[in-house]
């Protein structure tokens, strides 16, 4: 009685959880382009999408992915043999246990009524295989010193719940032959843990046994021209498909920035964990927002994560959507003024013009706010105070930036600058010209030196520096000024 009650409870929690999680895929979205499609519209779009798959070409793609990436998991094998062995041990033996043991009454007993009698040794072997796989997993996560491998509570839960299920199962099978009393006790432990794992499955990383294959299949038949509603749904689902395996962290091009800055959100796998929470609840603290904005913008869009992800997640597009949404929030993102904006610029046609310009204007306004030229009339005295001195000293420390003092205002730098040449009224459009910026540094006028539009529109083409007769390292100084300003605005 009690047992049946537990089974039905677990099954109903599982079913409700499953429906809830799946419904969230259609309810939530990330990015700025999809907001106006209702969940119902997204569901019908998905149905349309799925029904378009019933042709020979698409089915053969799906079939191939099913065999190669889901059954044989070639993606993992390509990354690392040991991890592949680990997962194949867990996957194959657990599937075996699931079919021939957990579901035996449904699947096998009807075919062969005394089946369970001959199963015992096989169950023990399968259990040991799963345990071997789990040991490798623990070994990789806790003993092998893999750089930038992060283990979250959920990763640990996933491994531990399986360890308990298998260990209790093994004891159960063994005591079955010796002590009925013990057997009964352990049977309860085993059943409780299994049912708990089942009930909690839709909310845990174990859900990846459904979502990871789904992500692999979806991405095999979808591309950037697919229905935007379906892409939006897929992107939320992909957050559930991530196994936090850390492959992307290991390959990420900017991982060294993480090593130095220590912001977890720079690492793609950690960003995935963040986004998973974020889609469900978009109210986050200013501090958290700053950290995720830096993390998501500090990405060279090198595609490496997308290429290596064993769950087949299209991270490129996911970053694109998430980045757009996160930079539209009030908090300005200073990294937008650096070449990290390159990929966004290349894709400006994909973003509504107004929304494209807004965050750029925001950050430029903040960075140039102090540059008030109207206050600097010819007869206004220039104050040489402590602050001015400190600024000059900071500029003088290194990186060849101390050369500003050699400037004799010949204006060569401004004459050769292609940005200056591009404007009919450079002074108006750019606030200051390059030689005036150098002059401002010499005078200790930090507000002008770091705040002109000229500075933030400098190409770093080094024409000015190359042509300065006095050896002033103009561009190096500009780069330093930008870092000073970005540091100040943090």
């Amino acid at each position: 009685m009690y047992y049946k009650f537990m089974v039905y409870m677990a099954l109903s929690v599982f079913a409700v959880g499953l429906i809830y999680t799946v419904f969230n895929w259609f309810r939530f979205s990330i990015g700025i382009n999809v907001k106006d499609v209702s969940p119902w519209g997204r569901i019908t779009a998905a149905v349309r999408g799925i029904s378009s798959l019933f042709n020979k070409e698409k089915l053969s793609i799906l079939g191939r992915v099913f065999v190669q990436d889901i059954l044989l998991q070639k993606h993992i094998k390509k990354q690392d043999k040991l991890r592949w062995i680990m997962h194949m041990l867990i996957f194959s033996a657990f599937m075996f246990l699931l079919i021939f043991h957990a579901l035996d009454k449904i699947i096998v007993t009807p075919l062969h009524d005394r089946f369970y009698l001959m199963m015992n040794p096989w169950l023990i072997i399968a259990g040991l295989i799963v345990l071997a796989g789990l040991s490798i997993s623990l070994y990789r996560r806790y003993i092998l010193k893999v750089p930038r491998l992060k283990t979250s509570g959920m990763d640990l839960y996933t491994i531990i719940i399986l360890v308990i299920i298998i260990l209790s199962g093994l004891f159960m099978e063994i005591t079955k032959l010796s002590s009925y009393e013990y057997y009964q006790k352990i049977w309860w432990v085993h059943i409780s843990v299994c049912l708990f794992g089942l009930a909690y499955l839709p909310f845990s990383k174990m859900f990846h046994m459904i979502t990871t294959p789904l992500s692999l299949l979806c991405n095999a038949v979808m591309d950037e021209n697919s229905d935007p509603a379906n892409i939006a749904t897929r992107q939320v689902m992909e957050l559930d498909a991530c196994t936090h395996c850390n492959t992307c962290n290991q390959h990420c091009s900017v991982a060294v920035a993480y090593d130095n800055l220590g912001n977890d959100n720079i690492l793609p796998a950690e960003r995935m964990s963040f986004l998973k929470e974020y889609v469900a609840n978009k109210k986050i603290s200013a501090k958290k927002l700053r950290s995720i904005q830096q993390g998501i913008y500090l990405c060279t869009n090198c595609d490496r994560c997308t290429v290596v992800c064993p769950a087949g997640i299209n991270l490129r597009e996911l970053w694109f959507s998430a980045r757009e949404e996160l930079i539209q929030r009030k908090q300005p993102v200073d990294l937008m003024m650096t070449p990290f904006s390159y990929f966004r610029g290349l894709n400006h046609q994909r973003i509504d013009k107004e929304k494209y310009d807004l965050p750029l204007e925001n950050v430029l306004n903040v960075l140039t706010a102090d540059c008030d030229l109207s206050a600097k009339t010819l007869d206004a005295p220039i104050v040489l105070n402590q602050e001015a001195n400190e600024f000059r000293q900071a500029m003088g420390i290194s990186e060849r930036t101390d050369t500003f003092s050699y400037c004799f205002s010949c204006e060569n730098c401004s004459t050769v600058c292609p940005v200056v040449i591009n404007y009919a009224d450079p002074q108006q459009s750019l606030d200051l010209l390059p030689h005036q910026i150098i002059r401002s540094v010499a005078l200790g006028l930090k507000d002008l030196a770091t705040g002109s539009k000229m500075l933030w529109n400098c190409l770093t083409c080094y024409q000015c520096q190359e042509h300065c007769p006095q050896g002033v390292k103009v561009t190096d100084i500009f780069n330093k000024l930008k870092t000073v300003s970005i540091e100040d605005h943090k």
Partner: protein
Amino acid sequence: MMKYTLFVGCNIPARIQQYELAARSVVDKLGIKLVENQEFKCCGYPMQTSDNKTFLLMAARNLALAEKEGLDMMVLCKCCFGSLKKAAHQIQQDPELQEEINRFLAEEGLKYSGATEIKHFLSILYHDVGISVIKEKISTPFTELNIATHYGCHALRPSDVTQFDDPVQPSIFDDLVKVTGAKSVDWALQLECCGAPLMGVNDTLSMDLAEKKLVDCSRAGADYVCVGCPYCQMQFDRVQNMMVSERELTDEIPSIVYPQLLGLAMGIPEQSLGLGMNMLDITTLESFIKMETEIDSE
């Protein structure tokens, strides 16, 4: 046999695979061996204007990896090249900084001492292989083909750091183009910036600069622009393609990466040079190849 470790950076594998493909085909035919290193990461270029220390660490880790292999680096991208050079320069000038960086690198068992030379692909062809050796490999030279060479800022300048070529009157790229039988045209804006560094920051300005250059080289009679950097290539290929619709650009002039040009003249098949992967059509380039009979009669 010449041997280098290949540094492709972030842009090429994601967006301009044809550059790497063509470079590999050409280098292979010239008998150069390339060693892979999966551990290379971003050169640090986009970090330079926001955080100098992080920039240096990103660059230095790559240099230390190459050093560990005991090989010089072949760099395809001029911005990668420039930032690796700049970082190396800065670190070497400051022993204290070098120590600090090495303390960081030690975590991964790496060390930077400056033993590895950072070389751009074009420099390797010009200095290490040599024009005369390349000339021997040219089997199907071009005729009546006018090329505008675009040098690219971050290789050329700051010249005291990059030491790529004479910053005012550079010549190595032109010589490399001439050896294929093509003519290198003179054009006023040759040494100017392509505008790529501002793409995403100020797109209008970025495209203004690209447009000026394209108009200028087209007026100078060039059939193609030729580049040795993925950023420049993107600017003159994908961004030019965008400008066609956004700005009604009329003087379309396609861009080609140098190893595609050289490869064709060396008789390497089109597929191994990724000609079809460019956004603007460059397959017409093949019509400039001298017919066999013309070669014989020379």
